[in-house]
Each structure stands twice: as C-alpha cells, then as structure tokens.
C-alpha cells in the first residue's frame, strides 16, 4: 500500500524533494505539499483505492505523512486494500 501511496505522491504531491528520500513518517507539508496539491492527492487516492474519504477525514493531519495516509486507507478499507 505504501508503494502505491508513494507513487501517487510522486505524481500529484508536487513535493520539493524526491518522495523516495522521505521516510514513512516524514511530514509531507514540510516537504512542500500545498493544500491544493493535497486535494489532488486525495482525489488520486480515492480513485486508486476505490474509497471515499468522509468529511471528518478531510483535514491536514490525515494526509501529513505516508503512514498517516496508510492508516486512513486501512480504516476505510478494513485492512483489505489491494
């Protein structure tokens, strides 16, 4: 799952650094992800994992790192992500 998340971040996150250089718990906003880019990341995640983030999850903290995103996706898919 983390590899897919990283691929989406690489394409849509507009990070200032190479996503490969980031740890799973590195702060993506500190790495340059803007709110606008984070919306595109959310859309791509919803498309790829076939989920919908409920509004309560649409806040900064949920998308701040690879592991935070993975935790949110796991919650939504009940751990059965592709």
């Amino acid at each position, binding site marked *: 799952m983390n590899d897919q998340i990283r691929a989406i971040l690489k394409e849509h996150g507009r990070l*200032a650094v190479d996503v490969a250089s980031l740890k799973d718990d590195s702060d993506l906003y*500190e790495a*340059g992800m803007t709110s606008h880019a984070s*919306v595109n990341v959310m859309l791509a995640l919803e498309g790829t994992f076939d989920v919908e983030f*409920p*509004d309560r999850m*649409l*806040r*900064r903290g949920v998308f701040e790192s690879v592991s935070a995103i993975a935790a949110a996706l796991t919650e939504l898919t009940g751990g059965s992500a592709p």
Partner: protein
Amino acid sequence: MSEGSGNVDVVARIGKEVAAQHADSVDREARFPSETVEALKKAKMMSALVPKELGGHGCGMIELAAMCEALGQHCSSSAMVFAMHHIQVASILRHAMKQTYYQKYVEELVEKQPLIASATSEVGIGGEMRTSKCAVMVDGNGRFKLDKDCSTISYGAHADDILFQARRTPESPANDQIFVLVRKPECTLTQKGAWDTLGMRGTCSPPFMLESQGVVDQIFEVPFADVASETQVPFSHVLWSNVWLGIATAAVARARAFVRQQARAKPGTTPPTALRLAEASSMLQTMRTNVHDVASECERLMHDEKEGTAALSSIGFALKMNNLKVSSSQMVVQIVNHALLICGIMGYKNDSKVAVGRHLRDAHSAALMVGNDRIYATNASMLLVLKDD
C-alpha cells in the same frame, strides 16, 4: 446579557464619541485613526481577548466581533485596525502560550497595550498567506535575522510590534512556514510606496521593506499552518465580516433617516424609497444572521477541547469560513449601494448628513482583501473532495 457586554458598550461609546468625530478627516487625509486607537488603548481594549486571570477583559470572539461591528458603524478604518490587531492577539493566545517569551509578552500587552500589525503579504506572492519567499536565518547564538519585502503592511508605521510568517529556513519549501513576532526597536521599516486608495484610507497600508532581527524564542513553536487554519482564517473572516456589517448597518441607518424625513414631509403617503429600504433591511438581516451564525460556530469550536482542533483544520470548516467572507464582502457593497439609491443625491453629496460615499468606497475593499476570486478557486478545489456527509 453577559457581564462582558459592558466591554462592547465601552467600545461602542468610543466609536460614537471618538471614531465618528474623526472618521471624515481620517478618510480625507488618509491618516491613521490615532485618536480612536489611543482611546481603545486607554480602555485596555488591546488586550480584550486576554483571559481575566492574566489581566485582560476575557472577551470571546463573539464579543470582539460585536466591538468590530460597533466601531465599523462609525469609522471602517478604525474598526479594521482593531480587528487586525486582535487576529494577531488571538494567534498568540491560542498557539504560543506554552512559550515563556509569549507569557511575558502577554503581560506586556496587558500593561502597555501595544498595537500589533501583521506583515502577511509579500512581493511576488501577493496575499497567498500559506506561501512565503522570505526565510528565517538563525545564527549560532540563538538569534535570527529576517527580511521581508511586503507588498502592504496595514498601519505598519503606527504599530508597536509586527507578527508575520516566513519560511522555516532558507532551504525550506515555500509552504513550510513559521510565525514570528518582531519588536519595533529591532526592525527597520522602509516605506516603498504610497497609500492613496479608494477606501479604507485610514488603515495606512503602504508597501514596506521589513528588516528585522530577534531571539529565536520569538518564533512560534507550532507551524504557521496550524495558526493559519485554526485562528488566522476564522478570526480574520469573522472579524472582517463584522466590520463590513458595521458599514452596512451605518449606511442603512442613514437611508432610514432619509426615508423617515421624506415620510414626515408628507404624512399619509409611503415614500417610494421606503420599498427599497424594506429590501435593504431584509438584505442586512440576511447578512447579520450569516455573520452571527458562523461566529457562534467558530467560538464553539475554539472552546471545544476534544473535537475543536480537528474540526477547525477540516476542509468543511475552511469552506464555510470562505463562504462567509465572499458572501459578506459582496453583501456589504449591495446594501450600501441600496442606501445610496435611497438617499439619492443627498447620499451622493459628501457634506450631507446622509452621505454614504465613504461607506461605499470602504465597502469595495471587502472583495479585495484576500481576493474573492482566489477564495472561490480554493473552494472549487475543496469541493472536488468534500461530500457534505
């Protein structure tokens, strides 16, 4: 009403007795409303938001909003200066009180009543608050240097201290920002242009080159992103909207006076202007309800220790705040324009008792301070993921 409403009365009186007296000269000469600010300082209103146990008035957002509206009825510039100062105070109180430096600063705020400006906008970036070019340069001795080329600093020349955002380090990306207070004795402000505008002339907001230094303790420990979403945006949009509500209320009051005068001249017939007044009154009520509703929700979330922080940083809340800003900034212009149509030539003449020219010019600033088109663009993007569930 609560005990605190006495504070609103004090500010309303300053509005009526001080701000109103000088509003025309402040506007005509594009000068800082120093009389009003002095009166507010004397009444210890620069620390209105500071909790009582720390020596302040212990006001909440709703009371402060009512103060902004009360001042806005008499002098929009005074009200906007007051609002902007308190957006900064609210940021310190919510995000920096774990830091010794700011505990001391708040004591000073209560005692000396300094006026805090913000240096949000930057040349090459404009009003995009969450992006910075300038960066903090920290040396080995716990001190920093920070220069910012500001496209505008409201009342920069009259402020005692300045709070603003910058990149964390010269290597940081544009949105990795810190928030820092710099003290006037430790900064040099070089004015780079004039402030000769259509309205809001008394806010005195020309461009400045800001060169500052200080100790690293002045840097907020929490990232600016949190300060922006949890405090700066909600406080700005609620307080600004209340200033605009004050402007709209004042213009409608003038239109009402005009219509009553017409009615008295010909008892038995309802003047045709009364119909338009009825329309303006309905618009004003809609605006007031919207402003008050969002302010109540904001205040509730800010005091909700369990869910508040998450809710304030959510996309749904950001959308609601942005909607408040665009709608109230548009309504103020429509309402004042109605007042002008009602008062006719008497509203158009600057020396008339029902003049609304200043109100109309001031009202037009509302759509521009953080441009509405930029806000709509942000909302459009957020709506792509928001479900309203």
